Every structure is written in C-alpha cells, then in structure tokens.
C-alpha cells in the first residue's frame, strides 16, 4: 500500500478510463457488439483501480507517512484517527481524487444497474462517463498529485485546520460530491441521446432515477454544509450567499428543474430538447462550481490553495466537456422531433411553470455570484453582491413556485380545468389562511409572513394530495389504508419531498425572527433574552487532546425553572496558533438556544467575558426539511416501476438518425 502503488493505480485508472471512452463509443458507432460489450468491464476495472489508489492515500494518512507532502501539510501525529481518514479529502489533491473515485462509482453503477438499457445506449453512456473521468484523472496526476513525496520527510505534519476537525464537515464532501458527480450520469445520457439523435419516453424514464439520486445527495450535502456553518462558525448564521455555497445551490436548482422536466419527457414525450439541455447544464454547473472555486477566480471565504496553472488545465477540461457537449447540442438538437402539445392548464403546464421559476432562480443566483468578477474584468470596478440582493431577488420567485408546488401534483395531464383542482385543495387553502392570520399576529416582516403561509400551503396540499389519492374519509378507513399500500411510491415520495420544502421554508421564516445579543458580563451575572434568563455561573480552563479550552457554564432559566445548562468553549489550538469557538446549542426542535463564549477582559479580580447569546426559533426545521426532501427522493427511487418494468422502445426503423 505504498504511495507509489497508489499513483500507479491512479495512472492505470486513467488508462482504463481512456479505453472506456474510446472503445465503447467507437463500437456503438460501428455497431460492433464486441467493442460495446467491453464497456461494463472497463468501468468496473477503473473503479477497482481508483478504489485501490484511494485506499493507498488513506493508508498513508493513517500510518502518518509524512514523506508524502500532502499528508505532511494536512495531518499530524496528534490528530484523532477519524480526522486522519476524513482529512484525506479535506484538501485540494485528496478531494480531486475523491471526485474521480465517485465518478468511477457512477460509471460502475451504470454498468451494474443499466442491464436493461439498449446495448448501444449503455455503451455510449459508459463511454462518455469514461471520457470525463479520464480528463479529471489526468488533472489529478499532472497538476494535483496527492502522492507527491518530499525529502527530507518532517518528523510531524503541520496539522489540519481545527475548524475542519468536525464530524459534520468530515462527511460533507463525500455526500456533496456524490451529488455533484451524480449529475454526470444524466449528462452522459443526454450526450448519448444527442449522438443517437433520439429522445423518447423510455429515455426520460432511464434518466430520471439517476437525476433523483444525485439530487438527494446534493440536497443532503448542501444541508450538511449549512448545518456545519451554523454550529461551528458560531455566527448564528446558516447561509451566507458565499460563492462556494452558491456553487452548490446553482446545480441544485437546475437539477430540481431537470428532475421535474424529465417527468414530462417520460409521461408525455414533451420538453425533450429542454430536458437534454438541463441535463447538460446541471452537470456543467456542478463542474464549473467545484473547479472554478479552486482556481481562485471567485472571491470566497473558503480557502483553497489557488494556483492559476491549475486553473488553466481546469478551464481546458471544462471547455472540452461543456463546450463539446453544447456544440453537439447546437448541432443535433434541432433535428430532435418535437413532442406532444398540451394546454397551459395541465400537469405539463404546471411543470413548465416550475421549470421557468426554478431556472429564473438559478439565473438570479448565477448572476449574483458571477457579477463581481465580471464587473471587475470588464469595467475594472470592484463591487460585491450580498444578502440584500439575493433576498430581494429570490423570494419573489420562490413564492409563486411554492404556490404552484401545491397545485401541480393534483393536476391531470394534457388538459385540465383549474376549478376542480382548487376545490379539492379547499382544506389546504383554509390551512394557509389560518397560517397567514397566525403569522400576521406573531411574525415581524412581510416576507416571513408570506413565506410561512406558503410553507403551510405546500405541506397541507401535499397531505391533501395523498388523502385524495387514498380516498380518505370518503371510504372506510381500512379501504383507504389498503389504497395507501397500493399507492405508487413515487407519488408518496413527491408528496413527502414537497412537504420537506414546506418544513424548510417554515424553518427559514422562523429564523428570520431570531434574536441575539452580545454581552460582556462577569461570572454570576444574568442576562435577559427572548423570555429566558441566561446566567453565567462558571468559567474555567480545560485541557483537551491538542488544544486548551476556555469553558463557560451558562444556566438558562425560564420563570425561575432551569431549562438548560450550556457549556460553550473557546479552544486554542497550539499547533496552528488558531482558536475555534465551540458553540453550545440546546434544542427542543421548536427553537434553539445558542451560546458562544468570546474573549475575556480585565484582571483576575474584575474579569468579564464576552458572550454571544442567540434565540433561534425553528432553526432545526431548515435541515430537517432538507432531510425530508431527500427521504422523499429516495422513496420515489424505490418505486417498483423504476426498478423492474424496463420500458421497451418502440422500434423506429427508418426514422432513426445515426451520427457519424
């Protein structure tokens, strides 16, 4: 398991990926069954080589092999074992290797689960994935080699940024990357469809589960990142509209649009060209997001080692992947046949509206993120775009989206009338009005009031949707229960995911009412915030494994009764000369009490401490809602129709266009 073997395995993976790109694609073009048949084997072989390479790097990290410069720069003997392992992907080189590994897993997954695909389509999809993988493995080998050695090897490593030594962040990158890279599969399907010149209902059905799976991981990854910044950074915030955060939100928005427009392709064979473009666009955003952040173009608080030379390689690679696929799109898409027509008031019409709103949101976030560097390049002006712009521009687009979300799942396909649907949603509308009244009374600000009303609308209409489908209250309860069992899992998944959005939005509305105060008090003093009495009862110094902590004890009482005792800490890491705040959060799922200890002032007799106290209503709901969304997605993946009934293509014969 030496680093050299790891590098060799990576080079082997790269060679296999290249073969995986060339052989099946040319085989599919020439209709050579033998060449097409090598695709799955190569994809699995590439995965094995990558996995071995990755294990070598983990082995080097666990055994403290500081002759590997990547380990020497990011690890230390005193680092806990968990972080030695997770630290492997906590830096640029290791994360690129992880990225390639996940892409390898995607290729192997298509090889393993794609048995019911037509041979040529499967060969093309695997081939395209191989081509993308080869590019990034070459990038890893030539400009970001994680196995590079240094001589003489240091006795101990430089250690890892203590902020990153956290279980939440340890598993954030793999989940987020699985989301990003997962969109490579819909991308490959889209490019394959363009090469074949054919998009039909079956294609829509094949693509959708991959898009849903990637979307679930991306949702979890974004939520985990936001949760981490909430409980680690100690600012009480959860989203900062930072370029790195936006880079994950942009593909999430376009991926959400893709997931929905693929439904229209599957059911009605419409929106085909648009869906292909979304599939290409979503992966392009994932790629540009992850890699442009590293080139240093975007001004972000998340530090990566910036290297313009690396940036040029990445840009070349992006030009090849994105430029190539979009050129193919410009060339082939006009020859794709248009699909069925539908009236604006129909399920398809609602899904189109969903796509328009989601893509507008995506454009807004993209503009806000890219505006500063482009202004700087074109006009030499330095500006920054922040929260006020994003809040003002996204909320007016999000609210109609929530309104549509409630209606669309109950709308019949093709042609529908609005009135019967709305009548069935009476109960949900009443719930929304009640929520509006309650929040008008309890919440400050117009947007939070509207947001919470719409959130209740989304949840209530999802419940109504399921209740209508199982004829609850209209038939005996046992019959309804039986219907629930027979209900397709994708319908239940949709309802759950939509309700999850509602839960998240409720959380966001609640957080807009958060209260906080910064105080400087001595031990024994009490502060009053949000109906609670916060008493600083004790502060002491506590030694940790690789830090010393200033640990406070805060008693929180409500009407004289103790609600919680908090132990926030401020940790000083000696190796990195850095301090971190260890936030103490007490949650009852309805609200978070959040305490941070800052600096100490004065001499021993008159010592005071700076405390930051927050009261965050409904904060946990933001991440809980994201989890519910992902659960809904996973549930719909387990739908029988996706797993078993392999859709058959109607032979088209002469209409079949072949590129080449």
């Amino acid at each position: 398991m030496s680093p050299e073997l790891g590098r060799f395995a990576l080079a082997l993976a790269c060679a296999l990926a290249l073969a995986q790109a060339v052989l099946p694609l040319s085989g599919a073009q020439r209709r050579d069954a033998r060449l097409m048949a090598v695709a799955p084997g190569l994809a699995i072989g590439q995965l094995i080589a990558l996995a071995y390479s990755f294990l070598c790097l983990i082995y080097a990290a666990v055994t403290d092999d500081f002759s590997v410069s990547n380990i020497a720069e990011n690890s230390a003997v005193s680092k806990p074992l968990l972080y030695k392992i997770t630290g492997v992907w906590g830096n640029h080189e290791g994360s690129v290797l992880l990225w390639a590994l996940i892409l390898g897993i995607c290729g192997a997954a298509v090889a393993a689960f794609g048995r019911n695909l037509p041979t040529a389509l499967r060969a093309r999809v695997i081939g395209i994935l191989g081509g993308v993988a080869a590019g990034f493995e070459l990038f890893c080998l030539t400009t970001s080699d994680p196995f590079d050695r240094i001589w003489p090897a240091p006795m101990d490593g430089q250690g890892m940024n203590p902020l990153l030594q956290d279980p939440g962040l340890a598993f954030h990158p793999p989940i987020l990357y699985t989301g990003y890279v997962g969109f490579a599969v819909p991308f490959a399907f889209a490019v394959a469809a363009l090469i074949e010149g054919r998009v039909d209902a079956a294609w829509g059905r094949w693509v959708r589960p991959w898009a849903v799976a990637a979307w679930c991981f991306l949702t979890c990854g974004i939520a985990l990142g936001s949760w981490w910044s909430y409980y680690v950074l100690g600012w009480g915030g959860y989203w900062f509209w930072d370029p790195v955060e936006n880079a994950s939100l942009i593909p999430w928005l376009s991926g959400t649009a893709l997931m929905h427009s693929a439904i229209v392709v599957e059911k009605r064979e419409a929106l085909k060209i648009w869906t292909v473009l979304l599939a290409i666009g979503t992966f392009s955003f994932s790629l540009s997001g992850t890699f442009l952040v590293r080139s240093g173009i975007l001004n972000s608080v998340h530090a990566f080692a910036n290297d313009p030379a690396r940036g040029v390689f990445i840009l070349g690679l992006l030009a090849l992947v994105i430029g190539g696929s979009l050129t193919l799109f410009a060339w082939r898409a006009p020859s794709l046949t248009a699909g069925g027509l539908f009236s604006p008031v129909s399920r398809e019409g609602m899904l189109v509206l969903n796509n328009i709103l989601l893509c507008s949101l995506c454009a807004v976030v993209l503009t806000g993120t890219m505006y500063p560097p482009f202004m700087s390049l074109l006009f030499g002006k330095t500006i920054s775009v922040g929260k006020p712009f994003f809040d003002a521009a996204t909320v007016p687009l999000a609210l109609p989206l929530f309104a549509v979300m409630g209606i669309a799942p109950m709308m019949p396909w093709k042609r529908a009338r609005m009135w019967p649907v709305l009548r069935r949603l009476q109960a949900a509308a009443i719930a929304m009005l009640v929520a509006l009244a309650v929040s008008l009374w309890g919440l400050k600000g117009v947007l939070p009031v509207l947001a919470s009303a719409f959130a209740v609308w989304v949840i209530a209409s999802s419940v109504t949707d399921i209740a209508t489908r199982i004829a609850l209250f209209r038939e005996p309860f046992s019959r309804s229960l039986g219907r629930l069992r027979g209900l397709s899992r994708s319908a239940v998944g949709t309802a759950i995911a939509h309700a999850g959005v509602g839960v998240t939005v409720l959380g966001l509305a609640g957080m807009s009412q958060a209260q906080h105060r910064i105080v400087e008090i001595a031990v024994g003093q009490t502060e009053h915030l949000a109906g609670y009495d916060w008493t600083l009862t004790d502060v002491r110094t506590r030694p940790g494994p690789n830090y010393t902590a200033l640990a406070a004890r805060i008693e929180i009482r409500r009407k004289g009764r103790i609600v919680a005792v908090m132990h926030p800490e401020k940790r000083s890491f000696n190796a990195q000369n850095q301090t971190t705040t260890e936030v103490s959060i007490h949650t009852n799922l309805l609200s978070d009490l959040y305490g941070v200890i800052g600096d100490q002032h004065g001499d021993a007799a008159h010592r005071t401490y700076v405390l930051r106290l927050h009261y965050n209503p409904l904060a946990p709901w933001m991440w809980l809602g994201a989890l519910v969304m992902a659960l809904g997605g996973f549930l719909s993946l387990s739908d029988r129709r996706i797993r078993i009934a392999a859709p058959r293509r109607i032979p088209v014969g002469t209409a079949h266009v072949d590129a080449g």
Partner: protein
Amino acid sequence: MSDQPSPSPSRRRLLMALPVVAAGGAGVAFWRMLSGMSSGTFNPHDINAPATGKAVPEFERLPDQDPGQGFSSAELRLQTSPVLVNFFASWCIPCIAEMQALLELRNTVPIWGIAYKDKPENASGFIRRAGNPYVKIASDRQGRVAIDWGVSGVPESFLIAPGGGIAWHSAGGLDNSAVRADLSATLKRLSA
C-alpha cells in the same frame, strides 16, 4: 419551451446554438481572468480591498457620535501627521477584543473612529464600557461612507498619511501583534 411548434428551422438552429455561445463567452472571460491573475493585472480578491496608495474617498461631514465629534474627508486631508481611521461597531466581538490595543496605540498615533451601522446610543454605551481611544468619533449609521472606503467588515483600520493618502490598511483587528508591528513599521516610514 423548445417543443412548441417553432417558427422556422433556421431560428430554431440559432436558438439551439445560444447555450454554446454563452458558455464560450464565459469561457473566454474566465481565461482572461486566469491569465490576468498569473500576470498580476487581475485580482478578484481586490473586491472590497481599498486601494492603498490612493486618496481618502470624498465624504461630507459625518454626524457626531457621542462622546466625540464627527469629521469630513476634507478634515482628514488637512492633517499634518498620520491619522488612524478605525471603523468599529458595538455589535462586533472582534471590536471589543481590539479595544485594548487601540487604547495603547492612541499614544503613538491619533485615532479617529467611525461607528459603522450602529445605533448612536449603543455605540456610546460601548465606548463608555470599553474605554475611549478616539480623538474624534463619527457615526456612519447607514454604512454608506464605509462602502466607498471598501470596508468589508468591522473592525477595519486605515492609516492616513499627511495629505490624505491611504498609507496602510488592515481588514482585521489590531489586537494581532503581527498587524501592529506592520502598522508601526509603516508609521516609522511615514515619519522618516
């Protein structure tokens, strides 16, 4: 959407070519940014970084912030010795941490404070509690002047050379000894 019956095949072709054209434009821009970064002509991290070496941005006299007096950019330019302009706020923890360093620094260089996005009563309470290192204190209630200065967050300090040029800048607190050493080196250079 693209599946609606399209008016003419050529327009359809043009429409389908739009994405690649847009991506190409973005690609060229990124390439220029990258080459600018390696040659030093383009620095995205300049965003929010005030130009050291340039003149103090123009601003009208800011209102007084109790217990000090406000000032204008003209007054800053008229100074014959260096002045440290310090943006602070009562709501910022690093500002409290920085105070001790400011109280020591006031013996070497006059400090003019600007309360950034702060309620006047909060800011004056903060100074009463933490001590007053400032010669003058102005209130930038809306943070408008701070935008022209390129303040990205508080505390942020600027050393103004006689005549009104920004000689030095720190986007962090002065409680960091390395930052203070850098400041005193600049001060020495100015007085030499």
